């Protein structure tokens, strides 16, 4: 199944971000949107999330879809523990408490379940926000550069955590980034966006064999070169 956005138009004052823009996203895959800062990547996520209204657009396949969001910052409630932060979004949803424990285990934070966010590192907090997004019974997970503030080692750990949890529970993921390495390590499909007004410069489908967390393979290196050339 495909989720389609057709004839999307969105401007901020004189600045046209999208003009008759079209994109098709495959369900149950990780689609990476790679593009320069300020090109409208976050706006696209916000339009999908209905927190920003498009000037005009036809959205197909999004009806009744439940969405969870992994933000740039973890956005955890400081007065709730790891476990309580995850329970917070699923309370009243007829979901068992064991679900929370399951996702805490999947992001390897069992020992920290009763810790407050102030006692966790930045990477750990972002892992909690990943667990929260998966514990929520969503159809689509939107990710807005959640790895931006992390160093390379933490980034790789987080990508591993994310992939592990996603293999276990495949959802439709739309992941926005300006970092080619993140897109190559995480994505099943990569859409390369131009500057605003956005056009899709190219689209790449990655074979699953790429997902072994290495950028050193010759195929990866050549793909990276190809994308870099397109982005220039």
């Amino acid at each position, binding site marked *: 199944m495909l989720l389609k956005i057709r004839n999307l138009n969105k401007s901020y004052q004189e600045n046209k971000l999208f003009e008759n823009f079209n994109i098709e996203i495959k369900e149950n895959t990780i689609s990476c949107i790679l593009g320069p800062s300020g090109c409208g990547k976050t706006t696209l996520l916000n339009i999908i999330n209905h927190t920003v209204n498009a000037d005009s657009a036809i959205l197909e396949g999004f009806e009744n879809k439940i969405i*969870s969001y992994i933000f740039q910052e973890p956005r955890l409630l400081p007065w709730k523990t790891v476990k309580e932060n995850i329970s917070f979004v699923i309370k009243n949803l007829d979901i068992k408490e064991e679900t929370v424990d399951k996702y805490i285990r999947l992001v390897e934070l069992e020992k920290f379940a009763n810790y407050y966010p102030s006692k966790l590192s930045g990477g750990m907090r972002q892992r909690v926000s990943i667990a929260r997004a998966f514990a929520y019974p969503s159809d689509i997970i939107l990710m807005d550069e959640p790895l931006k503030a992390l160093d390379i080692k933490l980034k790789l750990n987080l990508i591993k955590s994310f992939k592990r949890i996603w293999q276990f529970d495949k959802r439709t993921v739309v992941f926005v980034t300006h970092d080619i390495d993140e897109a190559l390590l995480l994505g099943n499909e990569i859409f390369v966006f131009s500057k605003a007004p956005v056009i899709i410069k190219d689209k790449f489908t990655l074979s699953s064999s790429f997902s072994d967390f290495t950028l050193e393979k010759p195929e990866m290196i050549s793909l990276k070169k190809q994308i870099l050339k397109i982005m220039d």
Partner: protein
Amino acid sequence: MSKVFSKNRIITLFSTLLLIVAWKVVSLVYQSEFILPSPESTLISTFKIILSDNFFPAIGLTVLRGIIGLAASFILGVGLGILAGTNETFNAFLKPILVTIRSTPVISLILLALIWFKVDMVPIFIAFLTMFPFICTNVIDGIKNVDKELVQMAKTYRISHWRIIREVYLPAITPFVFSGASSAMGFGWRAIIIGEVLSQPKYGIGTFMQSAQTFLLVNEVIAWTVIAVIISYIFEVIIRKIEQHIVVWN
């Protein structure tokens, strides 16, 4: 850390001692118990007051008035503050009321309260009007300072409005509520005692201060003042302890 702590303690002790020495020196200069009694005669008066039959009813009722005033200010201040903080129209409605209450001289409020209420109610009414705007304004400021990104996160996860107020706004404003309550108590105490001085309920710190002043018992006036300061300090400590107990996440 402990070195700094003990150094600060020594400085505090030194400044307190300096104050007592200055007091003693001035009392020696005037040599009059009617103008400024010495620290030791004030201390004796304080013990006499503590051992008197009037002590517990006086402090008990003054403290009770303070607690009733604080509780009423707290409930209304937090409730109306949340409404005003989350609703601009209500905020515009409440703002002039808060400004008027805050700018009205305490003495005007007391004079009016003396006409409107029975003597026992006057200090409570004054305490309420002094403390309520503090707590309410702090709650409004607290709500406005709530991290909007947390609220947006909660909305993305379709959390109900009521749960957002209870689980996002309320904990976020807790430190503001406590700092409001703490400053409100400081002003509230003074207002209660002024209220008691002027309305003369049967028992109250202000009532006994006023009768001591009438008989020119300056040492008793100062002794009651010292007692009021100590009670105010105890309240401050209790508020801080409750805050530490509730705001555990920092």
